[in-house]
């Protein structure tokens, strides 16, 4: 994309770069610094911050697919939560036959197991996402009201189907042996699994940014967000792009679901819908359709929840709502409003 614009043109004025909106990006470090004196002890602060970032990464994993689908297709999928649950349940397909790997005292074997779970989850949710898009979503393109209703209906049916397949009672899934427990450095406590979550979250975020900003597909997706008709007029099959983004979004939800399930260590069909509340708050804060905003929003919400939970536990219950209200008062469209809408 950069090559196209700069190289061949005779009057080699480089295209003006889009201005980066720094203010929202500064919010996260500013918040962390602000919390430092309030928390008091430095080691507690580090513990809270790392835990919060890990939480934020998991929320981001679950929310990124939804915001991408909305940005590109103007489709709001209230059934997104069921892909989170489904991904989590799909990891049972791997955990069943490979139970020995989970017991093994080898980090690599444990991580490989986690990876296999993630792959299984992404595979299953990707396939179900394809069907979901075809059967549930496609007939209601263009009408938000019907989208909300129909995807809600899809959610009910899919949740019940999970009950029918895997049973209605919660299923415990223990963490692989070496991922349990925490590293303790001085007074700082860092749970191992949370560090893994931070790693995977960062990997996905960087991967998505590279894909969106450095590849041809990403260019098409971003162009499609701005103006789908024009992309279609230039000869690209926008429909195929739409469907693949929907499938990718569902698969990301599955990935997030696995991470979330290991964090909670229990599986319930309603777990996706429970976390959807956070997901919606995050994508509203970020600006519907913005992946970067979704990332900042996730960090913001998770960090605030952690700090407030430590400083004033009673307030923590509504801290998410307060953050959202404050952000919306500041920027009614969210932190990074997507231009067209």
């Amino acid at each position, binding site marked *: 994309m950069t090559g196209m614009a700069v190289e061949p043109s005779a009057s080699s004025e480089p295209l003006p770069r889009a201005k980066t909106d720094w203010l929202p990006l500064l919010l996260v470090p500013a918040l962390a610094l602000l919390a430092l004196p309030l928390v008091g002890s430095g080691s507690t602060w580090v513990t809270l911050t790392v835990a919060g970032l890990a939480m934020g990464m998991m929320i981001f994993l679950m929310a990124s697919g939804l915001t991408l689908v909305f940005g590109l297709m103007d489709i709001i999928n209230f059934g997104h939560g069921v892909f989170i649950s489904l991904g989590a349940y799909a990891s049972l397909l791997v955990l069943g036959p490979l139970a020995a790997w989970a017991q093994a005292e080898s980090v690599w074997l444990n991580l490989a197991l986690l990876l296999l779970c993630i792959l299984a989850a992404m595979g299953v949710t990707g396939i179900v996402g394809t069907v979901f898009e075809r059967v549930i979503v496609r007939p209601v393109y263009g009408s938000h009201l019907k989208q909300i209703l129909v995807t809600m209906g899809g959610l009910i049916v899919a949740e019940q189907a999970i009950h029918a397949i895997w049973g209605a009672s919660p299923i415990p899934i223990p963490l692989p042996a070496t991922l349990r427990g925490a590293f303790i450095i001085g007074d700082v406590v860092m749970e191992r699994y949370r560090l893994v979550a931070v790693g995977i979250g960062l990997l996905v975020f960087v991967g998505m940014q590279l894909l969106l900003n450095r590849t041809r597909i990403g260019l098409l997706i971003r162009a499609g967000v701005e103006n789908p008709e024009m992309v279609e007029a230039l000869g690209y099959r926008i429909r195929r792009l739409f469907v693949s983004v929907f499938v990718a979004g569902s698969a990301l939800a599955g990935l997030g679901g696995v991470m979330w399930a290991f964090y909670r260590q229990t599986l319930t069909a309603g777990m996706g819908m429970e976390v959807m509340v956070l997901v919606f708050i995050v994508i509203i804060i970020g600006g519907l359709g913005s992946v970067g905003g979704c990332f900042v929003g996730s960090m913001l919400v998770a960090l605030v929840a952690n700090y407030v939970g430590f400083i004033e536990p009673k307030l923590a219950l509504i801290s998410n709502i307060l953050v959202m209200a404050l952000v*919306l008062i500041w920027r009614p469209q969210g932190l990074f409003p997507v231009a067209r809408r």
Partner: protein
Amino acid sequence: MTRSPVFPLAVDGGRTGGSILAGLLSSDLPRSKVLTAILLAILLGLAATPFLFSGSQPLSTAAKICVFIVLVASYDLLLGYTGIVSFAHTMFFGIGGYGIAIALERLGATWFSVAIGLVAALLLSALLAIAIGLLSLRVRAIFFSMITLAVASAMAVLASQLSTITGGEDGLSFQLPVELRPAFRLLPEPVLGVSINGRLIAYYLLFFVALLTFLLLLRIVNSPFGRVLQAIRENEFRAEALGYRVVAYRTMASVVSALAATVAGALMALWLRYNGPDTTLSFSIMIDILLMVVIGGMGTMYGSVIGAMLFVLAQSYLQVLMSAGSTALAGVPVLPSLIHPDRWLLWLGALFVISVYAFPGGIVGRLRQATQ
């Protein structure tokens, strides 16, 4: 869904019945013989339930239907008439319930506390509805759905955590005013074999308040205000261009609907003599409401009557049917688990999706089409 004219003040030609009935129904008649018959049957059935059936189970079912008719009708005002999806309806339902429960528990079992509780609940609901509306409806209607979901779930958590006020997960049980207690006898002798006790009075209180609220809602949707709401639903941009402040109207609609839901919650608490997170605040009730509105018929108040009736009956009796079917098919591999009585929501969910696609007017829309 009936397409309504964009001009809110235009008089609809077919609605000129001058009788008292037309006045009561705000000139919005059922417009279908079958529908009229069903509605009459429901009305008479609910009015005569204490005399038709014995035992407390049918009476409780009837009371639940009355409450849900109000709840679903008020939700339809938002979904069917204004075209916005709220997930906070159970929050207002819960506020009504908790208003009554807290007031009666703290201030003693008098009518005065009922009034205080109701008024306080109505005020809180109105304030919350205005705040949510102004925060979310300014930008896009779709924000509203997500924000209501977030706020409602936060309130549900709050209600279960603030156990000193709300009783937490256990909820609150309380005494009713003397006249509504089962031991109270209005008449010394039974009438038609039924003793006129406090339970019966409570049922009729519920029935008439529900009926009145329903007629009031019918009045509202057929007023010029209701016409503006429908205009916004059909074409937001055009309504705004005609000079109607869309944000203000949508917020007003959400306030009216919240108030009616609060009344429904108060009735529910009065009937159960108890209020807790599971009876009024839970998300599954929200899903039930959605199912009732869509299956009954969006954009018609009568749809909510049919939807509520059908759903509550299904809830009580469909499961019995399914368990019979499930045991009958015990040998077949997958089928029994699909029609297991706990899976009844699966089938209602499928019905829901199909109705949104195939007949967005729901049952009422179908019946009206058939007569045209």
